[in-house]
């Protein structure tokens, strides 16, 4: 069992490594993508400078909390797109019958699918997020919490994308909807939770998992709360479990597209 897990992890690492090496063939394009993505994210600091100039805080967040929020969001989004970029286009694979190539491989199907692609610009997101959080001087403990929450955030984003993508086994046209719902998380997750009240707040914490991916983690980094930390860890594990179950349940319904293809 342990050897099988070790082998699977080794295959995943090699898959991601070769994805990145393939993208690095053209170094100028690679560096431009990474650098400009970081710069692209940085432009949003202007938005918050303007808003915080109007009011001292927005939804209870001052500049430091905003930077933590953006840093956590960018790094989690980045990590999920570096390691598991294919989760975000899973719908397309299912609809077009492109899963065949993964089904015949001797390793875990879902893990093989998820690690088969890397979004290079996500490296820029990850670096930007990490630098931004370091600039907030969170302390040693805060930085370790940040690293932990980057992992839980990436797990939540990926699991949610897999869950939405897997619905394509049952429904058509989920590809556009998957993309929009996942991008919706990013949009909500870059604004403070204090501006949302009532039903919308409940939905954003428990149904669309923005609260568990970024808002709770920011609260824990600012003022440690073991209960919140355990809630986030539990939620990430639960969502991952549900998404894996739904994927394999849906896979039973999968019909090949008779598409000729090979993965080298």
């Amino acid at each position, binding site marked *: 069992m342990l050897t099988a897990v070790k082998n699977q992890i080794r295959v995943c690492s090699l898959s991601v490594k070769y994805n990145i090496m393939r993208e690095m063939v053209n170094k100028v394009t690679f560096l431009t*993508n990474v650098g400009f993505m970081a710069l*692209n994210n940085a*432009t949003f600091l202007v938005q918050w400078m303007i808003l915080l100039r109007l009011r001292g805080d927005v939804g209870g967040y001052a500049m430091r909390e905003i930077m933590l929020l953006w840093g956590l969001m960018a790094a989690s989004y980045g990590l999920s797109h570096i390691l598991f970029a294919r989760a975000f286009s899973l719908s397309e694979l299912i609809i077009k019958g492109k899963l065949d190539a993964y089904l015949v491989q001797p390793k875990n199907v879902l893990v093989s699918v998820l690690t088969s692609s890397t979004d290079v610009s996500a490296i820029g997101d990850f670096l930007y997020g990490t630098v931004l959080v370091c600039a907030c001087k969170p302390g040693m403990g805060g930085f370790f919490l940040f690293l932990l929450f980057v992992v839980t955030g990436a797990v939540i984003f990926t699991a949610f994308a897999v869950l939405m993508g897997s619905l394509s086994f049952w429904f058509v046209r989920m590809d556009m909807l998957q993309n929009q719902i996942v991008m*919706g998380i990013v*949009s909500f997750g870059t604004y403070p939770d204090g501006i*949302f009240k009532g039903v919308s707040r409940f939905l954003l914490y428990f149904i669309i998992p923005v609260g568990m991916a970024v808002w709770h983690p920011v609260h824990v980094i600012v003022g440690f709360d073991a209960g919140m930390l355990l809630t986030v860890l539990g939620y990430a594990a639960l969502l991952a479990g549900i998404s894996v179950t739904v994927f394999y349940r849906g896979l039973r319904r999968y019909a090949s597209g008779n598409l000729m293809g090979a993965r080298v």
Partner: protein
Amino acid sequence: MRKYAVIYSSVLMENLQYAANVALGFFGYFVFIFIFIKLWGYMYRTPGELIAGYTKEQMIWYVMMTEMLFFGSGAASVAGEVAGDIRGGNIVYLLNKPYHYTLYVLTKYTGEWSVRLPMYAALAVVIGVVMVGPLPRFPLAAVPAMALCVVLGLTINAVFKLCISLFSFWIEDTTPFQWLYNKLIVVLGILFPVEIFPQKLQPLLKMTPIYTVCYGPAKLIVDFSPEKCVEILAAQGVYLAVGCGLMFLIYGKGVKKLYVNGG
């Protein structure tokens, strides 16, 4: 001109067939508007309060209009597709046709947004009226002037995005430059009106494409005045002329560098 009219009508007919697909994008637009309704609801603490000369309703309508332009125009034809045509060599099949490539792309793009934009405009009006309330003192008689300003704004935006894509003649991937251009438009023009920025920055912002692409059309819809309309239309005329000049120049120089492998 007739050939471009034919291209326009054929693209329009094609896009009308897939109008239902446009509706699938409404979710993303709604999310943005929902966030901004909540955000400005938090920022305005007392009824009737003014921020940078805008009431809460005007501020939300401003964002709804700029986001409508952003979502409703969808710029894939002038950004990714042009870069892909040049990088992949497909441009060879388009160069020998009896039209100018850049004008062909602009016409195709106009045909695409002619279907998308009215659908997003209808959605924006419904969301605005239901969730924010109608715009006070909206001048119906000025709608043709506003529409002209919107069309010019979209065309100027397309010309500048096309200019960036044409750099694919020299560099492999222009996508990062498109990101940066988009983000500048979003942060400095879509999210806030120019008046919200510090006084010293405002003249500078009025000299950028942002003033003609998103601020101008949205400002006229939210707070119309004949003087402002003339000023914005004049600025758009200048920008369109300069943008087109730049586009033809880059294309003329770039196409000489084109090297396509057989295949």
